[in-house]
């Protein structure tokens, strides 16, 4: 178009130059030089935004755009994420966000083709958001340079319009025309009607380059998370923990609890223990906590069961009881059949602590059937989300 215009302008001035003599001829020559300058290829190529792998997910180019993937994820950050991706559970010591998981990675953005005097800024926004259940929709976060982008706290949610895009790299100037930035996907923890699982999730982030403080986009590229598409899986987790004023629950293979020294008379119970009368001996009782966590499952409630998977060797002396309150008369022997143990609750909700009381019955047996010494049993807890 520019060429066509200049040619037309040149044609329009030829005739006056023929009539006017030297001055007009000079103008004609200048126009010709401008025409040549515009017509020949520039010494500076057109600006562009390029992306490349930088300590994170693999990024592939597709023409002038790019594609990648965070792979398979779940809202509890369970398991090993895809190579180049770090997953942290939220909220937690590593993440202050609401219930869910943040999967994050790093990449390099480059403002290519800038002239020596140019200063570039690269901004980004979510041009195509993930789909799925509205409440469960994944959200894309970004981390600007020069942050290390190795902690959840460095990431902020990206806008979904060009008007709300965020600056990821500023002050780009040759030869330092590149920066390492971060992208993340936050997967909210939802159950019930807002649960969502499955593949086919894709989102697109558009990166725009702005030069020299101008509001005009100088160049753009996109990163499409479709290689392959993101997959959301459901997840479950059951943790046991120490209750206030209860015996310590140690998180080791998977959990352990040591009642310490006990006797059939309930004399001098240890810290965190109380004694409850029981025919034939005594029950040492302690409260403890169960924390069921589940995500992207259609049910909003779960059941909790417990069974004695490995009884005490001296099962006539030591046995395990369960109680909802710890009060006398509320303790029931925990079944030693783990095929189909009864549920002690069917209404446990996500991330809602359930307090139970575990009772250790010690028989007051004397004589040949008596036992003195250390013994061990195993309980198996089952969290099921229907």
């Amino acid at each position, binding site marked *: 178009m520019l060429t066509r215009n200049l040619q037309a302008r040149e044609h329009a001035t030829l005739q006056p130059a023929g009539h006017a003599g030297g001055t007009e001829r000079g103008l004609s020559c200048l126009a010709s030089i401008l025409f040549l300058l515009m017509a020949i290829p520039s010494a500076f190529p057109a600006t562009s935004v390029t992306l490349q792998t930088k300590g994170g997910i693999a990024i592939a180019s597709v023409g002038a755009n790019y594609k990648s993937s965070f792979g398979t994820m779940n809202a509890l950050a369970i398991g090993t994420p895809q190579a180049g991706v770090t997953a942290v559970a939220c909220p937690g010591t590593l993440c202050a966000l609401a219930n869910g998981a943040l999967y994050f990675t790093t990449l390099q953005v480059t403002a290519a083709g800038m002239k020596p005097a140019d200063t570039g800024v690269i901004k980004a926004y979510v041009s195509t958001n993930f789909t799925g259940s509205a409440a469960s929709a994944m959200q894309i976060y970004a981390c600007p340079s020069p942050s290390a982008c190795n902690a959840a706290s460095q990431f902020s949610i990206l806008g979904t319009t060009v008007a709300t895009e965020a600056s990821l790299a500023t002050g780009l100037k040759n030869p330092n025309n590149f920066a390492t930035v971060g992208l993340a996907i936050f997967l909210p923890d939802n159950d019930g009607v807002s649960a969502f699982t499955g593949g086919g999730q894709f989102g697109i982030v558009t990166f725009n380059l702005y030069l020299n403080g101008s509001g005009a986009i100088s160049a753009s590229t996109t990163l499409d998370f479709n290689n392959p598409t993101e997959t959301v899986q459901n*997840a479950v987790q*059951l943790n046991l923990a120490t209750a206030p004023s209860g015996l310590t629950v140690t998180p080791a293979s*998977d*959990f352990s609890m040591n009642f310490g020294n*006990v006797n*059939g008379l309930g004399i001098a119970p240890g810290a965190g223990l109380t004694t409850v009368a029981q025919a034939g001996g005594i029950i040492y009782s302690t409260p403890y906590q169960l924390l069921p966590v589940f995500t992207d499952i259609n049910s909003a409630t779960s059941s909790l069961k417990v069974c004695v998977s490995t009884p005490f060797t001296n099962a006539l*002396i030591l046995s395990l009881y369960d109680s909802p309150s710890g009060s006398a008369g509320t303790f029931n022997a925990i079944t030693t059949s783990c095929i189909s143990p009864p549920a002690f609750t069917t209404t446990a909700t996500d991330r809602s602590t359930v307090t139970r009381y575990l009772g250790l019955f010690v028989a007051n047996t*004397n004589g040949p059937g008596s*036992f003195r010494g250390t013994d061990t049993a*195993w309980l198996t807890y089952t969290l099921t989300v229907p």
Partner: protein
Amino acid sequence: MKRTTLAIIVTLLTMASTTFAATQASPGTSVAPTMQISATVQTAIRLTLAASTGCAFSAPTGGQDFAMNFGTVDALAINAGACVGAGAGKYAPTSPGVSDDTIYYSNYSLTPEFTSQAQANGTISAYVSTNFAANDSLTIVHGGTAAALPAQGAFAAMGVGAVNSTNIATSVVSGTALTRWIGVEVAHTSSAAVAGVGTSQSATVTYTLTVP
């Protein structure tokens, strides 16, 4: 080609169903963590004294575990004493002020409890660990191993000091309460040397439950 396709499917299924620690799983709707429960069983033993149908127990004032107060007594059995229950009473002297003494007595209960002992039976003995200051006038007496009220003559002085322990019960079993008798014998002696008259006197009896 078919075999290759099958191999790929198996691999994908394996990856998709990967489970992690037993506390969590993804994908999945159920998880079954375990908890190890440990305990060390120790032997234990306990002896509890309690009032029976006789003298009531009162709160001990000198660091003892139990207390029984016979109240005001005398060698002629004139005072009723403080123990008025059916299981308490007094034996008056047959020749007041001449030959024998007065005994104020009461029953009481002993409950031995022991657990995780190699033996199923134990013994109970007792001795006067701290005697009356006026022990010329007052003596702790016991009814031996009898559960029923002993005759006056069956009450005997309890040994003073651990080496003189008195047998209270043998072959006791855990959890079975026993009834025994204890009393205060008031001497009939009268002289200027008699001490403690008119003042409250106390003694301490130590009971020992032993399961061999």
